[in-house]
């Protein structure tokens, strides 16, 4: 019997087609895995099943019935529960309060009723913490258990887990997997998003692979190979179009020693002039904290970062939030970094702008990178590709010796992608050191002279002989840590 049938779901966010006809079937008592690269549409798909995202088209059937989900309320009513990657618990409230939140029942909710209700659930699901503990004080694994228990206590029979193991240590993963098989025995259906083959083979019955918002394949798990899954996930039809830059590798320009700030643990790295050093890995393994450290907006617990050869420039991984000031024009975004901390860009004299100079610089950047915009258009109105080119143009303005680029082509079309990569390659050929932090394996393989994989906050160097899609795909899924 099929509990869940998702068919031909489509959803567009602005210029991004997050779901492009994706679908999925889950049988009763099945643990079904969902696999895909970052941006493949996994999270959007499960949020549609939970009523948080309203698909543009397509149908959702639960137990054979066509349903319209107006919100999580409806989904819960139908027995669908979602355990989010970033938990949907209120850390300021107690365990008992979180368990009672959203439950229907009498008007009053005294401390005793609250506690006994919670104690019942905690006992039933074998959770050994006190009901009056603040949820913020729980460990990550405990929070996850609590959220699962809360869903089950509400009669959820179709449990969706969005990358539940990404935040756990190995022993915790084992007990989560055990819990999932127990749930299957009790007749629950589970949809399990994971990137790690060992987890998938340990517990799942079938796996569905998503790529670019479409499903690529659904396979029976027994007997499946890591290599095959990796290929399905990243695709292998396109050969890398470009080549890594061929340059003379020079002295060290940027050196990090033992960078530690959760979840980074003792990350060492050296970036040399004239090379492209790529850090591959699946999102959530420490990329954002690493970027924040390099941008100078995050305090380190320990370790040091030394810029041997200034200037340093950063192309932020989130152009809309941290890369650009969306309300400002292209021209002003271009000079913002140099105007910070009392500095003066060359387009300014005595602290005042020389409008003609500014327009000339902006026009030059527009022309060089083929940006379709006027110099003073607010960047909010531009497409993602044009926004990204502005970030690149800004970073290159001062001929940086150390250049850091985080997912520089995420969300860009083929043309813009090629253009941005050419610009980056040219920087390395000019003699800059390029640190490429990217979750896009194609990009890493195309640009990098040297590769390391970031997995659970640690860097695993990849020997040049292992610069293959299969090997790195394996490492990204935890191949080196196992």
């Amino acid at each position, binding site marked *: 019997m099929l509990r869940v049938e998702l068919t031909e779901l489509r959803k567009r966010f602005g210029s991004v087609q997050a779901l492009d006809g994706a679908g999925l079937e889950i049988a009763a008592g099945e643990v079904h895995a969902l696999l895909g690269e970052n941006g493949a549409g996994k999270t959007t798909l499960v949020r549609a099943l939970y009523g948080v995202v309203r698909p543009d088209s397509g149908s959702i059937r639960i137990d054979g019935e066509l349903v319209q989900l107006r919100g999580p309320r409806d989904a819960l009513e139908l027995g669908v529960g979602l355990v989010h990657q970033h938990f949907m618990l209120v850390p300021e409230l107690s365990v008992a309060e979180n368990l009672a939140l959203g439950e229907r029942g009498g008007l009053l909710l005294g401390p005793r009723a609250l506690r006994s209700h919670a104690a019942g659930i905690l006992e039933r699901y074998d959770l050994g913490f006190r009901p009056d503990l603040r949820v913020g004080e729980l460990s990550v694994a405990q929070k996850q258990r609590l959220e699962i228990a809360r869903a089950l206590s509400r009669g959820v029979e179709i449990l969706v887990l969005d990358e539940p193991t990404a935040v756990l240590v190995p022993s915790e993963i084992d007990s989560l997997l055990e819990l999932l098989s127990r749930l299957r025995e009790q007749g629950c259906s589970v949809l399990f998003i994971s990137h790690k083959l060992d987890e998938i083979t340990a517990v799942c019955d079938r796996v569905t692979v998503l790529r670019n918002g479409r499903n690529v394949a659904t396979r029976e798990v027994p007997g499946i190979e890591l290599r095959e899954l990796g290929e399905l996930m990243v695709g292998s039809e396109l050969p890398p179009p470009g080549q890594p830059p061929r340059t003379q590798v020079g002295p060290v320009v940027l050196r990090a020693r033992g960078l530690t700030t959760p979840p980074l643990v003792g990350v060492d790295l050296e970036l040399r002039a004239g090379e492209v050093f790529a850090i591959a890995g699946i999102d959530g393994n420490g990329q954002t904290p690493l970027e924040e450290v390099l941008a*100078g907006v995050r305090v380190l617990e320990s370790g040091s970062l030394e810029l041997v050869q200034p200037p340093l420039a950063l192309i932020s991984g989130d152009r809309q939030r941290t890369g650009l000031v969306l309300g*400002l024009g292209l021209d*002003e975004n271009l000079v*913002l970094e140099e*105007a*910070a*901390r009392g500095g003066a*860009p060359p387009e*300014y004299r005595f602290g005042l702008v020389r409008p003609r100079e500014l327009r000339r610089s902006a026009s030059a950047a527009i022309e060089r990178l083929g940006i379709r915009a006027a110099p003073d258009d607010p960047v909010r109105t531009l497409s993602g590709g044009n926004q990204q080119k502005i970030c690149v143009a800004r970073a290159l303005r001062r001929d940086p010796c150390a250049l850091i680029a985080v997912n520089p082509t995420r969300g860009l079309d083929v043309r813009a992608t090629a253009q941005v990569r050419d610009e980056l390659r040219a920087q390395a050929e000019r003699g800059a050191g390029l640190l490429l932090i990217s979750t896009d394996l194609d990009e890493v393989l195309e640009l990098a002279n040297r590769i390391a994989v970031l997995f659970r906050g640690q860097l695993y160097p990849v020997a040049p002989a292992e610069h293959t899609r299969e090997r790195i795909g394996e490492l990204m899924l935890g191949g080196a840590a196992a």
Partner: protein
Amino acid sequence: MRRAELVAPVAAILAALALSALLLLLLGANPVDALGALVKGAFGDRLALENTLVRMAPLLLIGAGISIAFRCGVWNIGGEGQLYAGALVATWVATRLLPGAEAVLLVPLVLLAGAAAGALWGGIAAGLRVGRGVSEVLSTILLNFIAVLGVAWAVHGPLQELSGAYPQSDTFPAAARLPMLPGSLRVHAGVLLAMVLPVAIWILLFRSAAGLRLRAVGLSPEASRYAGIYPLRETVRVLLISGGLAGLAGAVEVSGVTGRLFENLSPGYGFTGIAVALLARLHPLGVLPAALLFAALASGSGAMQRIAGVPAVTVQVIEAFVIFFSVGFALPRRNG
């Protein structure tokens, strides 16, 4: 300002006018007569016009200051208190500290003292924000009350006229008064200054590197931090600037208009300044027409009360309508 940006303020004014007309009807007045009286009272004759211009000066200064503060995401609601602080210290300089000085020296000193006092008053809020994490919204509001009462205390005490007859300061010496513009009875040089300063603020905000930092912080504190800007430092700066402008407005008021300090010096210029800035969509040049509109409302309201029998405070309701509608039509947006 682009043409598209003019749509929202005009729509706000029209919507506010429509609602005000409705209100006037409810009050039993003929809206056409009442508004006619208001326009006549504001622009009908030379005296009315001069009166309007004089009332425009503080609104220009405070409105320009609020624009720059709100653009930086700093909610300075303390224009009124900063105005009173400026008026108080300006009066002290003019009547107690240097009453005998020459005009070339004294007028600038009086104005500077006022601006400095206003900046200090804004600076207290900045210090509380940076040092103690106190939201500037509440601190500037409370500082309004304190400054107004401070003036009340001063004119009953240390700054009271030497004759001791009324709770007001001595008259300013002639050398401390802003000169009248040639050929006018009431329009003082401060009006001119107040019309020039928004232009200077516009240059600061839109033509300087410092202004770029301020706007960036207001639009996206996150992206600004990534670019290397310290948002708190900019917060302090704008509180000093907008406080200074409001303090200057206070000094201009005592030196150019009243010639002495007394309680209730300001008919709420500090708050109307917020309406001015919002209607101007936080654009320092847009402050010029917006301030003219509100000055006309204020100076015409007396005539409206006399001729059409509509209470002058109704103008405050119209003001509030304008703010509501300006807010409803969305201000410059932040990232995300």
